[in-house]
């Protein structure tokens, strides 16, 4: 039974690892952007597991992008170091911001974090000498000189790292703490859970992941700008991926990310002039009729069919 459960994961890992061997630059490029959004979707969900609806994804993604690019341009740092630095800056800022905003709950916390992308963009726009102002900054060369196979490995590594961290969250006492905070904060407190400390910790870790994703994205495409790096796409697409795949788990956002990443590209090629309408309609319909997400529906279906087989 345990072996049967492991097979899909092994199969997925094998496909991911060998993907560049049987695909060309185009599919690798599609995979790169899908994996970046998937990383954001998983990290967004990790915070959601504590019951906090955070909308700061685009803000920390942009912050990580800028930190990585500016480190390269100003001290000629190695790209890997600058990507890690992007994560560090995003995590550190989230820690400071979190100390203040994690006193808020529900809609108040959501709206405050939603404003972060605009605040960061305005601040960066107003230091034109350092940040290039509204036009942004360019890297002299992109990472791996644009070699999509190598870039795929890099982005896959970031996605895998995020999935591993998410699974660690799922399988340690952090999971119990976050779930109890989500279910009832007062009960969690009375059980000895330091609610505020856990929330700040999760907020900082997920923001650091978003910063790393941002730094990677900036190195892949070679530039940052307030409009591009803090685009609402980096919030809305991951959110749609997590909702479609199923929230409060690692694999829901992963499945949602893969499905939406592939679907959006497929629809674009099939319906060049109306694909965004169809894409939006599919997201709305799935969210309405499958509120638990695709992955949970699949799990339920597998469980039911095995129960039926058992009865027979």
């Amino acid at each position, binding site marked *: 039974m345990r072996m049967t459960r492991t097979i899909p994961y092994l199969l997925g890992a094998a496909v991911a690892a060998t993907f560049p061997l049987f695909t*060309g*630059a*185009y599919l*690798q*490029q*599609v995979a*790169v*952007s899908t994996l*970046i959004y998937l990383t954001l979707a998983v990290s967004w969900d990790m915070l959601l597991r504590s019951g906090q609806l955070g909308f700061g994804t685009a803000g920390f993604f942009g912050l990580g992008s800028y930190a990585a690019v500016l480190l390269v341009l100003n001290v000629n740092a190695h790209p890997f170091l600058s990507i890690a630095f992007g994560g560090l800056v995003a995590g550190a800022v989230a820690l400071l911001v979190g100390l203040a905003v994690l006193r808020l709950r529900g809609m108040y916390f959501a709206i405050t974090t939603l404003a972060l992308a605009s605040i960061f963009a305005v601040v960066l*726009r107003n230091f034109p000498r350092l940040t*290039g*102002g*509204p*036009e*942004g900054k*360019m890297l002299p060369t*992109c990472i791996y*000189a*644009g*070699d*999509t196979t190598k870039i795929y490995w890099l982005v896959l590594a970031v996605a895998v790292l995020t999935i591993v961290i998410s699974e660690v969250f799922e399988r340690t006492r952090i999971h119990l703490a976050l779930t109890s905070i989500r279910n009832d904060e007062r009960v969690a407190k009375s059980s000895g859970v330091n609610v505020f400390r856990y929330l700040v910790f999760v907020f900082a870790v997920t923001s650091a992941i978003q910063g790393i994703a941002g730094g990677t*994205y900036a190195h*892949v*495409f*070679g*530039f940052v*700008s*307030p*409009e*591009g790096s803090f*685009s609402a*796409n980096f919030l809305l697409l991951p959110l749609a991926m997590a909702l479609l795949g199923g929230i409060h788990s690692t694999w829901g956002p992963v499945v949602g990310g893969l499905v939406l990443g592939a679907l959006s*590209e497929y629809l*674009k*090629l099939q319906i*060049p*002039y109306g*694909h*965004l309408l169809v894409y939006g309609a599919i997201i709305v319909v799935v969210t309405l009729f499958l509120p638990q997400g695709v992955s949970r529906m699949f799990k339920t279906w597998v469980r039911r069919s095995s129960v039926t087989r058992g009865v027979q």
Partner: protein
Amino acid sequence: MTAKGKAAVLKVWVLAVLVVVGAGFVVAAEEGPIKLGAVLPLADITGAQGSKAMQLAVAEINAAGGLLGRQVELIIIDDESKPEKGAAAIDLLATVHNVDVFIGGMSSGVHLGQLPALKKYEKVTVWIGAASSLVEQAVVGMDWYFHVHPWDYLQGASYVEGWAALQAEYPLIKIEKAFWAYEEGAFGTSSYNGSLVAFSNWENVGESFKSALLGGGDYRSVLRHAQEFDPDLFIWVGYAADALPIMEQAREIGFTPPLFVGSPPGWPADFGGSALANGVCAYGMWAPSIKNVSPVSEHFWDAYVAMFNEEPATYFAPLGYTNVYVVAEAIARAGTLEKEALITALEATSYVSPLGETLTFSPSNLIEHQGFSKQKILQWQNGAQQVLWPFEYATALPAYPFMGK
């Protein structure tokens, strides 16, 4: 025949078969279509109409017998106004469709994300969008890259020239004070900063706003500050979504400067039909009224309306049409798709475009192959966009002052 002789004959036969089969493949490859790969934002009016105009040009070229005895195939991919989608589109066109030339383009932000992919393939690229000078810095030294749209600083310089010419020609028009309302993003802010340098002889005041395109749409505070400043010229730099609300809110507070100018990349298709449009000046590369003074523009207009049953409303339509014809004429001149020959042929471009001007390529500040260098000053008059400057394409006299103040 000896065994040695038989083996020799067999070798000759095998060689002959290989030569015939190989030649067959070469002929088949040569008989395939010439492929042009276009990347545009199809959900936006600029990309939607630009791509249709490209289809029109390809249909005309194929109807006239194609190029080098081959048909032309146009493959259009939507960039969704996202850099990563734009980059994937380049990879798709290069590796799956194996296109011969890249064309298209609109947003600078998307194009910056596409440049790593373009640099990887180094195919001949003739780009009609991306006006940011940041893009110009990124394409220095790329001899296979041809840029058609004027860079942002070239546009600024042409407005200086245009307003100076209009004041000289019509002494009633006097501009000493200007108020700039600009959207807070890269497009608006860099336009404003560039204009401060370009129009340094004017007294300039500027204030940013959040565009309706990005969730804004309330301009009352900016408009009231402009009203207090009492400028000779009020200009807003934003997007099509801002056009009608700005006019509506200006009317609400009774703000009627002598010159009311809008500078979006494209106007709403029905803007001319609004009573608020009359007398509003605009910047652009083309106006439908140019068809009255340019036979090429007239042909383009008639053919576009006949093919799509809609009127072109953005200059990206004639620009897309120009994009295909410039490449097609260069291929015809080169007589081959070989890269160096094609670059040389493109350098010799002299194409009378439906935008009015004849397109040639010459060096800009940083790159070797820059196409157009000027924009036009236009004015909405009785529902139609008229050209005020350059005078050689003028289709009407200026209506001045705005709202008959």
